C-alpha cells in the first residue's frame, strides 16, 4: 500500500505548465479578435453575395464553351501548362536544396544555412517574384511558369526533406551484406524509395499550383487568374460564375486523378 500511495503522489505535475500555455493561447486569441471589425458589413454585401450565387447559377455559357484563345477552355489549358511546367522546374530546383538541408546527409551547419535560405525563398510573395521574373521574361505565361516554380520551392523542398529523413535505412544494411558499394546502395536502396515519394509530392504540389495560378493574374503572368479577378472587380457575375465553375471542375478532376495516382505510388 505504501508504494501505491507513493505512486499516486508521483504523478508528474505538468498541470501548471498546461494551464499557462492555455492561458497564453487564450490571451493571444482575445488580442487578435481586435482584428475583427464587423462595422463594415453592409446590406450591399448580401446583395453582392446573392449576385455571386446568381452568377454561379447562371454562368456565361458562351464564354465557358468558347474555345478561342480568349475563352475559358484555352485559359484553363494555359493554366494547366503553367502549373505543370512550374511544378517540374520548381522540383528541379528544390531537389538539391532538399538534400542540402537534410541534416542526416550534410553537416548540420550547412543544413541550417540552407533552411534559412528556404525560409526566405518561401516568404517572398508571388507578387514580388512576378515582378522580378517579368524583368527576365516579359509579361505572359512564361513569367507565370517561373513564378510558380519559385513559389513551389519552399514547400517542395520541405516535403522532400521529410521523405529523405524518413528513408528506411534497414535496406541499406541488407544491401551492405550483399556486398553492394555506396553508389549501388543509393541506386537500388534509396532511389526506388524516394522516386515514388517525390513523384507523389510533386503531384500534390501540381494540384496546389493550379489554385495558386489565380495569384499569377496579379502580375500579368497568364492563366485564368487575371480574367477571374478582372471579372470580379468589374462585378460581371455571370462571367465570374463561368470562370469559377471551369476552375473548380478542373481542380476537382485533377484532384481526383492525383489522389488516385498518389495512393497508387505510395501504397502500391
Amino acid at each position: 500500500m505504501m508504494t501505491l500511495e507513493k505512486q499516486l503522489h508521483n504523478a508528474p505535475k505538468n498541470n501548471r505548465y498546461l494551464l499557462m500555455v492555455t492561458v497564453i493561447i487564450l490571451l493571444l486569441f482575445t488580442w487578435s479578435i481586435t482584428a475583427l471589425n464587423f462595422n463594415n458589413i453592409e446590406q450591399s454585401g448580401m446583395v453582392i453575395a446573392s449576385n455571386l450565387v446568381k452568377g454561379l447559377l447562371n454562368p456565361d455559357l458562351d464564354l465557358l464553351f468558347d474555345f478561342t484563345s480568349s475563352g475559358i477552355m484555352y485559359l484553363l489549358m494555359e493554366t494547366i501548362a503553367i502549373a505543370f511546367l512550374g511544378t517540374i522546374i520548381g522540383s528541379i530546383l528544390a531537389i538539391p536544396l532538399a538534400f542540402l538541408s537534410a541534416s542526416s546527409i550534410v553537416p548540420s551547419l550547412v543544413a541550417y544555412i540552407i533552411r534559412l535560405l528556404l525560409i526566405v525563398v518561401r516568404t517572398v510573395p508571388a507578387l514580388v517574384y512576378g515582378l522580378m521574373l517579368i524583368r527576365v521574361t516579359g509579361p505572359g505565361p512564361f513569367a507565370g511558369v517561373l513564378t510558380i516554380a519559385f513559389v513551389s520551392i519552399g514547400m517542395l523542398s520541405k516535403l522532400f526533406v521529410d521523405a529523405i529523413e524518413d528513408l528506411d535505412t534497414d535496406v541499406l544494411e541488407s544491401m551492405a551484406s550483399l556486398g553492394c558499394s555506396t553508389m549501388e546502395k543509393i541506386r537500388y536502396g534509396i532511389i526506388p524509395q524516394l522516386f515514388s515519394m517525390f513523384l507523389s509530392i510533386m503531384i500534390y504540389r501540381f494540384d496546389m499550383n493550379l489554385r495558386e495560378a489565380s495569384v499569377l493574374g496579379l502580375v500579368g503572368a497568364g492563366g485564368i487568374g487575371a480574367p477571374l479577378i478582372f471579372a470580379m472587380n468589374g462585378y460581371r457575375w455571370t462571367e465570374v460564375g463561368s470562370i469559377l465553375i471551369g476552375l473548380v471542375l478542373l481542380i476537382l478532376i485533377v484532384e481526383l486523378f492525383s489522389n488516385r495516382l498518389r495512393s497508387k505510388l505510395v501504397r502500391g
Partner: protein
Amino acid sequence: QESSGNNSVDTSKTEATGENDSGEGNIEIDELSIGFVPSRDPDEIITATEPLKNLLTEELASLGYDVGNIDITVGTNYEAVGEALSAGTTDVGLIPGGTYVLYDDGAEVALTATRAGLSNDSDAAKDWNENKPTEPRDDQVTYYRALLIAGPSEKGQALADKVNNGEELTFDELNEASWSVMSSSSPAGYIYPALWLQENYNKTITDLDQVVQADSYGSAFARLAAGQTDILVTYADARRDNEQSWTDDFGRDASIWDETNVIGVTPGIYNDTVSVSKNSDIMDDDLKSAIQEAFINIGESEEGKEVISIYSHEGYQKAQDSDYDHEREAQKIVQSLN
C-alpha cells in the same frame, strides 16, 4: 505561336514581301510588344485595342519597319508594366506620367496624349457641382485633373452638402469617411489626391484610417455605388465613363450626376505617355521616331481615334523628358510624405 520570342530581332534587310504595302528594304522586326496599364477595365483594353495591332503594323510598314507580330499585354498592375519596360522585355508602354517618372531609368518618353478639355476646369469643387454634368469641349489639352468624389452613402452626402454650402471640410471629417484609391503610382488615383491633402491639410493618404486600394476605376465606382466606400479619387471625366454602369451594372436608381458630388479638385496632371524602352534590343532612335510618327498618324485617322478613345486619348504630341519635371516634383513630395 511561331514567333520565337519576345525580342529576337532580325535586323538584316530582307526583300519586300510584295504582299501588302510594305516598302522595299524594310527592316524586319519579329515582334513588338506593347504594354498597357490597367487604368481601364483590362478586358476591355485587350478587345478594344485589337484593331491597334493592324493600324500600327500598317503605319510602321510605311515608315520602314515590317513587324511580324504585335503583342499587346495588359499588366494587372502598373509595376509589372513599368518593370517590363525598364528591363526591356516590353518595347513600348502606354503608361501614365507618374509611372514613367518612376521607371525613367529604363524608359524614355516619346509622346504625350492629348484629349479634349472639359466644360469644368475650376480649382473649386463647388463649381463642378453647380455645373453638372461635365461635358467635353472641342480643344485639345495635355493635362487633366483628378477629383475627389463623394458617393451616395450617408457620409458621402454629408460631405458633399458641406462643400456645396461653401464650407471648408476638416481633415477629421474626411478621415471618418472610407476612401477608395488606386495603386500608389496612379496619378489621378493616388498621387495628386495625396498632393491635395498635403496642400490643404498637411496630411497624406496614409494618414487616413479607412483607405482601400482598388485595382480598377470600375470597381472603385462599384464600391462607391454599393456604399462600401464614401469617397473615391479619380480622373475628371471618370463619371462620364461610368455613367452607364452606374444605373445598369451597379444597380443605382438615380443618375451618377445626381448621386455623386465633387469635394476636391487637384492641380493639372500631365497626360499619359507613350514611352519606349531604353533597354529593349530592337529599340533605337529610328524606331522611336517611327513609332512617334505612327502613333501621331493613328491619332489623326478616324479608325485610330476610335481605338485610342478607350483611354480618353484623342491624339498625340511629341514629348520630351523635361515635360515631366513637374510630375517628378509631385512624386518627390508624395514620396517624402510616405
